[in-house]
């Protein structure tokens, strides 16, 4: 944040009418907000209406944007910072991310959809990473339970699958 630059706030309004104020620079993480502002809308007091995203989800997204904006601003602020410090900061941010995204499946899905709608690449990646993390180390039947999937393979198909990749099955047993 360069000194002397006017502080511009942007208001995001969720589908259930809650409004969130955040710095414009932070909101610009979202491609959708960026586009809206570029065409000259959204700066007014009415804010930017975000359809399909509830206040609860949007609040999480706003937290994420603020955190990442401040982290990026801090990194820009001290250019002289040595490599080690930068790496440490990055690691810290990553840890914060992982803690932030450590959520229940439903919430995670809401945030993913919201991040996708708003065009926040970092958050989409983070959510996908978390989904993948939830899948890790689980057997096929555990994944099925987790995602509520029904096993619709025929026995021939199942045999074929096991034949295709014996290395996977031998290792898990």
């Amino acid at each position, binding site marked *: 944040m360069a000194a002397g630059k006017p502080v511009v706030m942007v208001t995001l309004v969720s589908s259930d009418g809650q409004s969130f104020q955040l710095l414009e620079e932070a909101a610009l993480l979202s491609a*959708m907000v960026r586009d809206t502002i570029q065409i000259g809308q959204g700066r007014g007091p009415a804010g930017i209406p*975000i359809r*399909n995203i509830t206040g609860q989800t949007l609040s999480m997204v706003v937290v994420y944007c603020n955190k990442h904006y401040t982290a990026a601003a801090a990194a820009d602020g001290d250019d002289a910072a040595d490599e080690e410090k930068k790496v440490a900061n990055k690691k810290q941010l990553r840890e914060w991310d992982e803690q932030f995204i450590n959520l229940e499946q439903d919430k995670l899905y809401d945030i993913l959809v919201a991040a*996708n*709608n708003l065009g926040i690449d970092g958050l989409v990646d983070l959510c*996908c990473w978390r989904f*993948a993390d939830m*899948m890790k180390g689980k057997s096929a039947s555990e994944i099925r339970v987790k995602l509520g999937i*029904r096993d619709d393979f025929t026995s021939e198909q199942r045999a074929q699958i096991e034949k295709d990749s014996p290395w996977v099955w031998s290792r898990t047993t």
Partner: protein
Amino acid sequence: MGKAISLLRPPQGTRESESERGMELRKRPRPPLVDPDFVSSQPARKRAKGQSLRPAPARRQAMRRRGSCLPVTIQSPVAGIHPSACEPCEAPLRACRLPGVSFIAHRRRPFNWYEVDLWTEVAKYLFGAELVRLSSTCRWFRRLLADESIWRYAFLRDLSLLLANADRYPPRPLHRSWRLLYTAAFNGAHSYLFFRSKRHIGAYRIGGFLLESPHMLLTAMLALPRWLPPQDDGPHIAIEMTGACMLSNARPGIWIADFHLVQCSKCTINTCSGELTDARMCGTGVLQVLDARHCELFLEDSFWNGTWEYEDLGDHYNNEETATAACAIFNASRRAQESASCVLSAKSWVRRCDDPQPKAHRAIYAVALNSNLPFGVKFSSDARHDEGRADSVCQDHTADLLIKQCVVAFQEEETIVIPIQRLKLPLLQCK
């Protein structure tokens, strides 16, 4: 687009019997509303953006008008995977969907796990075994995860070959699928499964590197040889004299470098026990081997049935005492220069001289292994090139320590290139 439509979908539409739906469709055949490929291939993000900015009223009306066909044609999350979504094949998917979801009652999006874009993104973070397990959960996942691009991404990622500029990748290998390549590279098989397997102690994956041209340079030191005998003399002489040789018939493509610990058959003082897994402990009679192979080698039948032929390239003995032993493989092409200098700048990656643990380093076109020898030892290097397939540059010491670094080069009629990078994912521990 698919999302917008799913909201319009009648809540109970999905529960109808499939036969009825099929009948209805047959009665009123229509061309699909939207090209299914287009629906699926359009990135979700753009969809969302366009949607929230411009509601596209005209399109909505159009949907309403043709509402009866909508749920089947577009809503199918599988649209891109099998375009004929109007057919009964959609049935199992619907059965998979969470029961009782009403798309209209909730303001929020339907909780729909079957989202192609989502899972393609998630798949980027999954390793091969997890991909296989996920694809064995139901047919939808099996179809989705059979996509070659997912396996290609996983293959390059796990070999640390994902580069910013994609034009540097070698072309896709002929006649092979990326899934098979992934399996061959990561199913735990390694060059020692076939011979000397009892002596094999452990294997570690260093990573992948690229050969752009068929010229591969093998050296037993972290330096380029100042001089090499003419290639016509054959690699034997070059290795004997300089400890390095140039091969001009290596096979271009993606190569995989592994690091192996093997008990030495020549060692007379052999006090190592089989449990030795830590490279730090390798004192007596343990060979350290740098093994590189073309990623398609394990897909060759003749390799598995033992008819693959190998050629000895030569031996190089160093009778002076030395503190380190190293070996490296490069692609001898212009593009590889940066990689080569990165690998040869030993200071940047070699361990301190009091740390006897070996370390490997990989760049895009080169790979190297270095070991600090605790006792001033003599070493010999012996290179074996096996009829197109194996080169080994090996170094061994006095009876106390034997370091052998070997390259299995897979060479065919054409060319070679090598890239290298950092190591080391424990691949597997062999007993």
